[in-house]
């Protein structure tokens, strides 16, 4: 017979205010199997834990029930406490009387009664608990980083620095991500390329880092420490080993009218291209949508000019399989499409641009060589209007995003300042709803834009942009001035909301990592575990988790790397002992469980059983690999003979809980 101890926590007043803790410990002391019951102010405190340990020794307890906060909070704490006192950690059950009782009820009598019932259910369960020992599984000491922007590069560099191998999978022909398109960075105004490209080179030259550019993750199998990932290496139609990146082909290709994605379509490039001069790896890629040779079989100019013989028109996508212990998601963001915001005339006038397009228009390597010119007539704009929050902070529906995109206030201040500095003859208006600048030296930066550079910050929104006679007539609200403004502008710059990259959603499904309604990855805990996904072994870096600027992204990338390193230094991981187990005497070998197992943890063996009269009987039975089983329990329900059960959540235990609640 078990000897159960019950410990009711007050959690200060969090529980005690709506649950009569004394009455609960009293009531539960009368339950069958309970030999000791008490309550205390903070069970999770040092003193509380010592009290539990003392009670275990004194009353020779075999099982413990803690009535406290959610098991998601302190189950592990109390398991360790009991382990130190010499009882198996899996002989502990938590009755959640805080999140699921005291915090949701106001009436003390109601709360107390419910707490007693929840306590009874936990006691009923623990009476059927059995000691469990966790197995271990080995850790593959190599990490995968998905996405090669600044987040992915930083994570990979930090992991490699600790001596582990790390692969980067990047869907574009080069790593570098959005930061390669940015001209200057706030709040220091240093050149983005100057700080990013050395990192890209570091990553390429680091012998621990392998870059799979122009590649995508195709499938993910396995679990923490043991992932098997299929990577699709898309056909570049250029042999990566042979291409020297000389760029001759990109100058000779006769197909000149390909919109240049790197410059956001503001100019054109050839069908064979290297996105930009500092691309890593610096290898040419043929754009199959535009290449005349690939489409019609006639041309072949690039092949003729290539002295290295790297062009291969017959190249196919290849699939490779790699093994990893940890996966970091760094898929980043994109500005949203602005089709639904045509009151700003984005699709009517080339002079209405997004902020990212403006970055290209101001970049020395951009389509205008760094001189700010209107896309329509290549003249110098004298009046610019910036519109903030285009598509951010919207209320539901199909239009826009409900969240603040976070980076726009600062980059708009940066743009406004740079334009006023370089072209003092311009007038710059910024229409804002709120200026949000929480960050080191951020507000000072914004104030400089207003006070030193004379940027006109106007509280209000733009309602309509009317292109007419080469001008953009901007109708806007000046809420503090109490007027409807009509500004004759030369350019309008829209701070488009940012959204997670479209590749993130299918990736999340492959990784079984959860996402929020906006397709940002959710973290394991919003405050305490910000760089881990709730799925073990999956880590989050950069804007895939939420809008972020560069300093924040780099900080998070480093944090994600440290978590990966913490995982990879381990030789073995302790497995979850709450796994399925088949009772071989009851198993009839029907394979129902095998079919529903998502992990392939169940195999069948033929085993000899003793029959009557010294005969033997060969029977096919199921066997669970405890290192692979994740403990979902799908098989337990599929099993028609009731042979399959789940340790820690057995049929008997759950039935006992049901009985206790319905009593």
């Amino acid at each position, binding site marked *: 017979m078990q000897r159960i101890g019950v410990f009711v926590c007050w959690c200060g007043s969090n529980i005690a205010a709506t649950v009569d803790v004394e009455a609960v410990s009293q009531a539960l002391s009368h339950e069958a199997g309970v030999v000791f019951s008490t309550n205390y102010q903070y069970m999770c405190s040092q003193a509380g834990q010592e009290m539990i340990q003392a009670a275990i020794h004194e009353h020779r307890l075999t099982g413990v029930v803690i009535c406290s906060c959610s098991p998601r909070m302190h189950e592990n704490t109390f398991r360790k406490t009991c382990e130190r006192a010499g009882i198996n950690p899996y002989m502990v059950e938590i009755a959640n009387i805080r999140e699921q009782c005291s915090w949701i009820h106001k009436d003390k009598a109601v709360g107390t009664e419910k707490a007693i019932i929840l306590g009874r259910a936990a006691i009923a369960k623990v009476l059927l608990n059995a000691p469990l020992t966790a197995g271990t599984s080995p850790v593959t000491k190599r990490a995968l980083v998905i996405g090669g922007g600044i987040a992915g590069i930083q994570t990979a560099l930090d992991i490699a620095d600790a001596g582990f191998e790390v692969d980067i999978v990047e869907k574009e022909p080069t790593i570098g991500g959005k930061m390669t398109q940015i001209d200057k960075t706030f709040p220091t105004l240093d050149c983005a390329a100057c700080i990013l490209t050395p990192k890209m080179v570091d990553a390429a030259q680091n012998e621990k880092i392998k870059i799979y550019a122009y590649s995508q993750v195709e499938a993910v199998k396995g679990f923490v420490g043991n992932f098997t990932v299929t990577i699709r290496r898309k056909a570049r139609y250029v042999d990566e080993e042979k291409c020297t990146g000389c760029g001759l082909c990109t100058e000779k290709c006769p197909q000149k009218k390909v919109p240049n994605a790197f410059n956001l379509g503001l100019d054109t490039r050839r069908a064979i291209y290297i996105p930009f001069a500092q691309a890593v790896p610096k290898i040419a890629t043929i754009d199959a949508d535009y290449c005349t040779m690939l489409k019609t079989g006639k041309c072949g100019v690039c092949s003729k000019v290539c002295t290295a013989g790297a062009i291969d028109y017959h190249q196919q996508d290849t699939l490779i399989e790699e093994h990893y212990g940890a996966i970091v998601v760094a898929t980043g963001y994109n500005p949203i499409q602005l089709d639904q915001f045509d009151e700003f005339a984005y699709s009517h006038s080339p002079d209405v641009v997004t902020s990212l397009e403006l970055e290209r228009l101001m970049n020395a390597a951009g389509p205008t060589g760094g001189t700010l010119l209107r896309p329509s007539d290549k003249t110098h704009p004298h009046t610019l209007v910036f519109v903030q929050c285009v598509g951010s*902070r919207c209320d539901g529906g199909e239009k826009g995003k409900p969240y603040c995109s976070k980076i726009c206030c600062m980059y708009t201040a940066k743009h406004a300042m740079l334009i006023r500095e370089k072209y003092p003859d311009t007038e710059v208006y910024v229409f804002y709803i709120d200026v949000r600048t929480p960050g080191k030296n951020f507000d000072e930066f914004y104030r400089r834009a207003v006070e030193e550079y004379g940027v006109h910050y106007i509280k209000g929104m733009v309602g309509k942009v009317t292109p007419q006679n080469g001008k953009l007539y901007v109708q806007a609200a000046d809420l503090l001035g109490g007027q409807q403004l009509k500004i004759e502008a030369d350019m309008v710059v829209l701070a488009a909301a940012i959204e997670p990259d479209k590749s993130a959603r299918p990736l999340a499904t492959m990784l079984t990592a959860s996402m929020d309604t906006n397709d940002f990855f959710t973290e394991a805990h919003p405050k305490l575990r910000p760089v881990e996904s709730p799925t073990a072994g999956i880590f989050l870096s950069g804007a895939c988790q939420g809008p972020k600027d560069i300093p924040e992204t780099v900080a998070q990338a480093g944090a994600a790397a440290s978590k990966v390193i913490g995982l990879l230094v381990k030789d073995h991981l302790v497995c979850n002992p709450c796994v399925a187990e088949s009772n071989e005497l009851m198993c009839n070998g029907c394979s129902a469980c095998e079919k529903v197992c998502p992990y392939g943890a169940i195999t069948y063996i033929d085993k000899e059983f003793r029959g009557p009269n010294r005969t033997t009987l060969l029977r096919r039975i199921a066997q669970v690999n405890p290192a692979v089983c994740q403990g979902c329990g799908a098989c337990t329900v599929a099993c028609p003979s009731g042979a399959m059960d789940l340790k820690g959540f057995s049929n008997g235990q759950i039935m006992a809980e049901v009985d206790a609640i319905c009593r």
Partner: protein
Amino acid sequence: MNDAVETVRRISGVNPLKCMKCGKCTATCPAYDEMEYHPHQFVDMVANGRLEELMGSKGIYLCLSCFACVERCPRNVKPGALVEAVRLMVIRQQEQNHLKPQEIPALLEESLPQQAITSALRKYRR
């Protein structure tokens, strides 16, 4: 006055507290110059129970019901629906019709479509 705010909310189906005070309604309103209270102020005044002032304003008869503010509001607040609700609060009172049938003949002209008269009558009287 809170009851009146409730009435406006019920008639319009709009929660003025959703407004984030961006001013896009005011920026977009074609009747801005004609109104003493501009759309964003209108929303704010409803939210703060300042209905008497609104009910006495001429602007409520000058909203075009063009739905530009409704369409472009990022928070789905529908300032135009609030204007309609306040106007109804006025004209549903006795003898408060803004347009009386006997005034109509004077307004008629050869090319004026019936639609204009009917619309105005619908908008301006009980």
